[in-house]
């Protein structure tokens, strides 16, 4: 069997490990336009923060490809897939034949049209190692940084570079930060905390146009800056898949086997959309755990095994300057909240199931809540009042606890 994987991050690694758990022999080829062995993409902010380095941010050991019998084609772009001939065409003209194909093409920064953007000399996006390297080279202790986008990428970037620059201002059209993972109470709390580290927020506003070294805002305000970081959002890389007729929405549509709408063609990770069990809708869930698990699922099925991943939910563990935040699921339903000066907790239930939660400050044992969502555990089968106070296995029946703690777990 000839397997070809376009992309070389978590979904690709999951696929390789999935294939090899079933098929130790088939040929596996990985194609990526990045010239690097697999590294942890989400660690680029930690790299600038000084919490990791290029050696430690390797996602797998140096002998990973060799040990798994994987041929790598790095620094070369896959430009087209010829479905009839079953081959991938590369930017250098080479053709790579496949019998099973995985799209693990990830996503790219979305940069909205902004007047005068072309006149901004030092502008960066923040997704890949090369982005981090380029940004790092442009920063000085005197840099005034403007970040457009108060989402996960923009704020992790802000944290990463805070001690390297003179000032950071963050502009976002939304009237609160991290709206994709927090509710209003949580947004306010985290914003205040981040502000205490000298980061300034300008919310409910946007850049109308750029003059050299100056962003003029819709509200009439002005922000002088030396370095611009664009972190408005990302878009799944669906083009190659769409061109050969894979069904796509916002992302490449996959089922619980990570199969696309075309035979022998699979997709995994940030380029995809899949069913979110908390909303029962097809969504792009661009997070590393889902990328790995979808990739692994794809790999096993590509190699003729049987694997279904049907527990995808949005979930995030993120921290800023030592403040930890863990969130999961969706927040439509009956909410129960608890707030102290330094912590916030929100649990959301609907139809007798836990659908989502937000934990700020105290995140201990959060996975017990996540598991209730993923396993769709009926809340009337546990002591919900007890587990609201803190995540604990005591809230389960003695019998269920015996299953969880008394035997080998899959």
């Amino acid at each position, binding site marked *: 069997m000839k397997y070809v994987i376009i992309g070389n991050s978590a979904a690709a690694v999951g696929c390789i490990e999935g294939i090899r758990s079933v098929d130790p022999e088939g040929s596996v080829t990985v194609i990526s336009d990045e010239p690097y062995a697999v590294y942890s993409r989400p660690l680029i902010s930690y790299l600038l923060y000084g919490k990791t380095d290029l050696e*430690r941010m390797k996602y797998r050991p140096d002998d990973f490809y060799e040990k798994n019998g994987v041929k790598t084609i790095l620094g070369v772009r896959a430009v087209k897939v010829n479905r009839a001939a079953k081959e991938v065409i590369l930017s250098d003209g080479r053709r790579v034949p496949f019998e099973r194909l995985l799209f693990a093409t990830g996503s790219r920064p979305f940069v909205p049209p902004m007047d005068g953007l072309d006149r901004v000399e030092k502008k960066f996006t923040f997704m890949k190692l090369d982005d981090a390297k380029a940004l790092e080279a442009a920063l000085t202790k005197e840099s005034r940084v403007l970040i457009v986008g108060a989402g996960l990428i923009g704020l992790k970037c802000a944290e990463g570079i805070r001690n390297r620059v003179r000032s950071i201002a963050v502009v976002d059209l939304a009237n609160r930060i991290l709206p994709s993972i927090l509710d209003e109470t949580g947004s306010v709390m985290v914003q205040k905390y981040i502000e205490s580290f000298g980061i300034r927020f300008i919310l409910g506003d946007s850049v109308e146009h750029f003059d050299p070294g100056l962003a003029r805002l819709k509200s009439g305000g002005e922000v002088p800056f030396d370095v611009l970081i664009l972190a408005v959002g990302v878009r799944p890389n669906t083009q190659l898949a769409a061109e050969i007729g894979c069904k796509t929405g916002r992302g490449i549509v996959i089922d619980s086997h990570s199969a696309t709408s075309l035979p022998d063609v699979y997709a995994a990770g940030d380029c995809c959309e899949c069913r979110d069990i908390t909303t029962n809708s097809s969504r792009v869930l661009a997070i590393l755990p889902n990328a790995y698990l979808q990739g692994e699922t794809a790999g096993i099925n590509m190699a003729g095994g049987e694997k279904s991943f049907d527990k995808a939910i949005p979930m995030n563990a993120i921290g800023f300057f030592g403040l930890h935040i863990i969130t999961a699921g969706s927040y439509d339903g009956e909410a129960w909240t608890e707030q102290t000066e330094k912590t916030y907790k929100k649990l959301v239930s609907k139809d007798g199931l836990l659908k989502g939660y937000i934990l700020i400050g105290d995140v201990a044992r959060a996975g017990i809540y996540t598991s209730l969502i993923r396993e769709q555990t009926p809340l009337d089968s546990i002591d919900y009042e007890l587990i609201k106070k803190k995540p604990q296995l005591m809230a389960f029946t003695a019998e269920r606890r015996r299953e969880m703690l008394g035997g080998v777990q899959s």
Partner: protein
Amino acid sequence: MKRVYVNEKWCLGCHLCEYNCAFANSGETDMVKALKDVTIHPRIQVEGDNQVSFAVSCRHCKDPVCVKSCIAGALSVRDGVIHCDQDKCVGCYTCILVCPYGAVVPAPDGYVIQKCELCTNNRFGEPACVKGCPNGAIVFEERGTE
């Protein structure tokens, strides 16, 4: 593979396992030095009330969601034991987000995580919680099929 199991019928809720765990992982050879006036951060945690108590530590799952979710590639399986390379860990807590047992805990400094590695990562070599359990409620044994 041998794993740690607790029999909640025999657990007294005395928390000694937590102290033995903290000592075993402290790197100290003197228990007083390791534990006196120290807030412990054990990798095994006792839960319960006056009637029922039990200790929870890593299950060393066969299909570990923490390892597959780790954004840094810091968690791996070594001979069945789920191991954390604290040098690679950046303390994002994604493993805490996904562990259904609540068995992954922050290290004392909060910058990385720590978890039970069955004392394979310290000089004890075999689980100190098991050895020190006064009522034989925690055992280290083979169960079920792998």
